[in-house]
């Protein structure tokens, strides 16, 4: 489901490529590193839980339940598990999705959509990985922005151009 390809090594180095690295990562990151990140605690919202609110902080977050609201973990990783259902904008260093997300995603370093992911919303990220079978209804835009600059200036110029794919603003005459 979260397949690796031989050319990608599951090391933390792959998350720190220089600015000259390809904008789009050709394959998935290591699955195990997404589930158990090195360093720092991971908060978990298990299947069966439903939470409505705003998340902020620096702890990694694993969601396998339902979340409504807003998630802003600028320097952490957010993982939406296969049972996870999120209706929220997500802003994080890394975003991994195997479940369902309705909202705009903004990743400081990378975003990855697994084969079972269902995403509706725009995606703003320096690098993106998409497994076959993923469903994305929205916009993908890549930015060459360092995480530090990203957190310092979250509302950069490119953000203002992000389309809202689910906005009902089309007029049919």
């Amino acid at each position, binding site marked *: 489901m979260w397949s690796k*390809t031989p050319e990608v090594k599951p090391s933390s180095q792959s998350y720190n490529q220089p600015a000259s690295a*390809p*904008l*789009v990562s*050709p*394959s998935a990151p290591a699955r195990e590193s997404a589930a158990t990140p090195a360093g720092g605690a991971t908060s978990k919202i298990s299947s069966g839980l439903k939470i409505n609110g705003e998340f902020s902080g620096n702890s990694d977050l694993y969601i396998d339940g339902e979340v409504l609201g807003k998630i802003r973990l600028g320097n952490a990783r957010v993982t939406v598990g296969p049972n996870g259902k999120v209706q929220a904008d997500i802003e994080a260093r890394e975003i991994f999705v195997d479940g369902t997300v309705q909202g705009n995603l903004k990743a400081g370093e990378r975003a990855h*959509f697994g084969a079972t992911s269902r995403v509706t919303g725009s995606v703003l990220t320096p690098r*993106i*990985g*998409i*497994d*076959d079978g*993923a*469903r*994305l*209804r*929205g*916009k*993908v*835009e*890549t930015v060459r922005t360092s995480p530090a600059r990203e957190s310092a200036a979250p509302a950069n110029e490119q953000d203002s151009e992000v*389309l809202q*794919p*689910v*906005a*009902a*603003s*089309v*007029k*049919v005459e």
Partner: protein
Amino acid sequence: MNWMAKNRPGAAGAATGAAPIKPGPAVSIGPSANLRISNGLKEFLWLISDVPHGRILDLGPVWQSTVSFFVEKGYRVSTEDLLRVWKDFLTDEEEGFRAAPVGADTQRVSPAVLADKFLETALQYPERSFHGVLAWDLLDYFDPEVAPRLMERLSLLLHPGGAMLALFHSRPTERFHRYRVVDSQTLELIAAPTLAVHSHVFQNREILGLFGEFRSSKTFVGRDQVREGLFLK
């Protein structure tokens, strides 16, 4: 963008300032891959090359290789798997019809009315959002009454001077395929579970009618008799 005024790719017309078509990122393709040389894609890329950071709407499923290809060229990509969204919509409609209480107004509506209802939730982007639209062969799978309404909406979404690539089969297809970009002139056909049955074989004049609001068109016919149409708004 002036189609006729543009120089051919690789010709001496580099002086126009149009960005040359660069090869896309390497994509690992298995030996059994079903590849198709696409002059339509090549021409599509040439047409949108005037817009350095243009927006592309891909109406097929999202593929890593297609997104990578366009993103690495500097384009912004939106995807909406229109056929899947349409199928989900029809399923919901059918369930609503079955669940309606006895005596309720449960008359089945015409495809055209369904299309109008569908477009209340699908393809919801501001007008002139995109410089290029990849429609693949999906129009073949929509009811002939629905296709014109889709085209009307897609035409609104396309920026003046923008281009649309659409494929039309010359006979009903036996297998359902999805398309993804391998490089600047190669598509990979991926056999997929049938989402919809082939609905209509469009005649050339019908195609011209569908794209009546576009100012010019060009068609490439492959050995498999699939017509690749390129339409310039």
